[in-house]
């Protein structure tokens, strides 16, 4: 599974993307974030405030309770601020 990060999520983690293989018990975006948060202090900092975290699964915006089974790409990022 490919993970992509944007804005301060990317900055805190320190890389724009990484490949991971979470166990099958990691079924939702929320569970994925829990699983990622212990990988490094940067991951922990990026995911500390879950209310400011948004996600997309295979480039579709989803809630953090969305399933990730079969996903090829999960994106994690702050609320958007374009326009």
């Amino acid at each position, binding site marked *: 599974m490919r993970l992509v990060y944007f804005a301060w999520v990317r900055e805190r983690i320190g890389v724009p993307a990484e490949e991971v293989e979470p166990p099958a018990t990691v079924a939702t975006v929320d569970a994925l974030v829990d699983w990622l948060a212990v990988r490094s202090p940067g991951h922990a900092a990026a995911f500390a405030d879950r209310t400011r975290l948004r996600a997309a699964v295979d480039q579709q915006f989803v809630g953090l309770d969305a399933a990730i089974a079969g996903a090829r790409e999960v994106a994690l990022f702050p609320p*958007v601020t374009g326009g």
Partner: protein
Amino acid sequence: MIHIRVSPAPIDIAAEQARVEQDGAVATFTGLVRADDGVEELALEHYPGATEAALTRLAEEACARWSLTAASIVHRVGAMTPGERIVFVGTAAAHRAAALEACAFLIDRLKTDAPFWKRERRGDDARWVEQRDGDHAAAARWKAG
């Protein structure tokens, strides 16, 4: 006709307007980097692929809802300085109310539905822009209609 472009290139108003002028009523919105709040540079990050898909979905929704003849969304990414254009939205329809409403819809929804992130730099201080509560309220009013 739908036109979507996400690019670091400056926005050429005459060219963008000409592209949209497909009918009797043409409305546009242009967002510029504010020059009055001490920002020296604005950097725009986006999610390549997902951005274009989100903007295309918005344009398609506007075309269907207001029977538009043309809808265009052009968004810059990368570094910009005050006074430069960040975003251009243009709509064309047979009647002015449709063009004007669809233009407002597109810029309101773009603010909440498209994966862009702004970082402002003032001197040595660079910070990511926080989402405004008002942006969600503005986007939400189009759900009722």
